[in-house]
């Protein structure tokens, strides 16, 4: 029968195997242990050990692990009181569950010492999780941007600037190309392996409604979907099969695309002279973007808290941040000038990210927080809404009402509070 049957049976086995591999080392280690869910591929991890940590004032033992066993391990160390790990490196959403459990040490004392590194305040604030204390220091970040083939540039609408595009101008631009070439050359990653849901959660919704959950079925949202449906008339119909936009960009099937920086990288690496990178468009509520932030945190009870803090300071230094940038598809959390010896493609992407972050109306919208295993179903709400309104032309009001109820059920199940850009809530986040 289908492989589906097997999956639930395989999962526990894999988890056990993963745990066995990640079995704690003896606590006697003189070097602080740095446990990370990031830079996990073997080459990246090796680069951390042999290059990034080489000149560090504190030697550390870098261990990369799957997000699921990362969580299990940190919670297990706290429960048993047998602490091995001194430094944590993980995504915002992976660190967030530790805060209400009180597993992270406040790092308020460290913040003034990092002032020279110029970490943007908007990023620094994320490390507070809406509390009074700093629980992680932003380490590196990635995000989603736009990319365009240079052939598309002559069709830019009059008065539009690539660095300050609006969604309206994006539509006009794609329409002009459609008219001139007879082809729809704007593309989105709406295929099964694409990240289209992030476009709705981090870009379109906050740019048009100022929120994601609270404003899900607001009148602004209705207007937004109507506008987006009109824009979709200029979108390549193969978009519902696209996973990584670098591929249709390279093949020429798409001239303008939205995607994660790592999923555009091939295009910029292979033919940097053919493509331009630029910030996401803005809507009535500003330039919304979704930062994917990884942070450094120290667990409570860490055996080497002082060395861990020194390590954070070292990793936040601009020179170390540039070393990190060269290793991975993540960009520095600091406002470091892009190094001149960087690959031209990577530099183009880095510049676009920097411009987006520095935009006066920039509005960071976080990855969903606190949904745990319900994250997939939350994403499905946006994809279903898109299917029904845009592809099947159903009336937005009715669809939003129904999907809004489904969204509320998910939030109630996990008691998730609101996350930025929605205003903080005292209880479960409510779809208004």
């Amino acid at each position, binding site marked *: *029968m289908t492989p*589906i*049957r097997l999956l639930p049976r395989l999962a526990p086995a894999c988890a056990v195997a993963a745990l066995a591999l990640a079995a704690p080392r003896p606590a006697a280690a003189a070097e602080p242990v740095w446990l990370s869910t990031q830079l996990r591929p073997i080459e990246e991890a090796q680069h951390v050990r042999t290059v990034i940590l080489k000149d560090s004032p504190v030697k550390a033992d870098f261990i990369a692990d799957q997000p699921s066993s990362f969580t299990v391990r940190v919670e297990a160390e706290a429960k048993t009181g047998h602490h091995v790990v001194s430094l944590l490196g993980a995504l915002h959403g992976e660190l967030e569950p530790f805060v209400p459990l009180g597993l992270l040490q406040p790092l308020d004392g460290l913040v003034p010492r990092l002032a020279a590194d110029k970490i943007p305040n908007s990023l620094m604030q994320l490390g507070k999780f809406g509390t009074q204390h700093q629980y992680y220091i932003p380490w590196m970040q990635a995000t989603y941007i736009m990319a365009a083939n240079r052939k598309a540039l002559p069709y830019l609408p009059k008065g539009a600037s690539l660095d300050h595009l609006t969604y309206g101008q994006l539509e006009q631009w794609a329409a002009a190309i459609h008219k001139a070439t*007879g082809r729809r050359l704007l593309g989105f990653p709406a*295929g099964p392996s694409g990240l289209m849901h992030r476009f709705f959660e981090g870009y379109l919704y906050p740019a048009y409604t100022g929120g994601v959950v609270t404003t899900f079925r607001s009148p602004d949202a209705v207007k937004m979907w109507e506008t987006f449906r009109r824009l979709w008339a200029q979108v390549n*119909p193969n978009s519902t*099969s696209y996973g990584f936009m670098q591929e249709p960009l390279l093949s020429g099937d798409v001239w303008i695309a939205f995607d994660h920086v790592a999923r555009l990288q091939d295009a910029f690496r292979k033919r940097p002279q053919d493509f331009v990178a630029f910030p996401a468009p803005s809507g009535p509520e500003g330039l919304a973007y979704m930062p994917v932030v990884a942070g450094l945190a120290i667990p409570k009870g860490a055996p080497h808290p002082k060395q861990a803090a020194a390590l954070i300071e070292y990793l936040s230094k601009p020179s170390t941040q540039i070393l990190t940038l060269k290793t991975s598809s993540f960009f520095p959390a600091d406002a470091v000038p892009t190094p001149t010896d960087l690959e031209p493609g990577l530099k183009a992407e880095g510049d676009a990210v920097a411009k987006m972050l520095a935009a006066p109306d920039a509005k960071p919208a976080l990855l969903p927080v606190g949904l745990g295993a319900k994250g*997939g*179903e939350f994403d499905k709400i946006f994809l279903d809404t898109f299917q029904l309104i845009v*592809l099947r032309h159903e009336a937005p009001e009715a669809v939003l009402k129904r999907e809004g109820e489904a969204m509320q059920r998910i939030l109630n199940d996990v008691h998730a509070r609101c996350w930025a850009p929605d205003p903080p809530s005292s209880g479960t986040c409510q779809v208004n």
Partner: protein
Amino acid sequence: MRSRSLPYLLIAPASLLLAVLFLWPLAQTALLAFRAPGPLGTDVWSLAHIGRMVGDFDFHSALYNTLGLVVVVVPLQFVLALTMANMLRHIRAGRSLVLWIWSIPLGISDLAAGLVWLAILSERGYLNTVLQAVGIISGPRSWLTYETPGVLFAAIVATELWRATAIVLVILVAGLDMIPREYAEAAEVFGATPWQRFRRVTLPLLRPSIQTALILRTVLAFEMFATVVAIGGRNFPVLASKAYDWQYFDQNTGVAAAYALVIMAAAIAATLVYLRLLRSPEHAR
């Protein structure tokens, strides 16, 4: 005594293995589909997952798409395979070679078959290259999008015909080979036309093979997955691909299990229908 228990001892390992690797996961799947977290946090018997599945806007498309494929693909394959098998009967020299060539697709995985046809039909595929070369279209055309559901359906049917007709063919060829030629010769002596001989002699004698071939093919058609995903992606949902989506993307094992049960129920129902319709008459067994 020993001789009486021996057969059971010999089939015991196989039965045990089947029970462990089939019945046990089956029971687990049913549990996953019918148990959901109750108000107290513990799992209780519930139709919640079934409700989620049926309430999902894609459920009906997935159901109709799957049924549509089965209804179109299986009869077509049956007629094609029967014709091919009969043609083979009249070939003397090189019969094995022809049979061998015809069954090549059997050795290709369904995903590979899907990718072969994707390479033909995609925007920059072979079909568009040919059409453009002979001047029928001026630039690349998209055939496999949500805007062209008819072509999408036809492409999947074509892939399945190309890929899986051979399995029906092989079973029917084996069945035909087992029918003694004397029956046909006797009918000929009595003046039966070729059509009458086929209709009145060959087909009834072939019934057990037809039953096997149809059951096997229909059950596999309900589980169609890789070819559909390769060609249609999310533009053409079927039951198996929805189960996959719920498990991997939406991370809800309960609803995925509910889909798996629907597929199984459909396959069992089809099998029962075939067993009843194509029953061999008592005296012929």
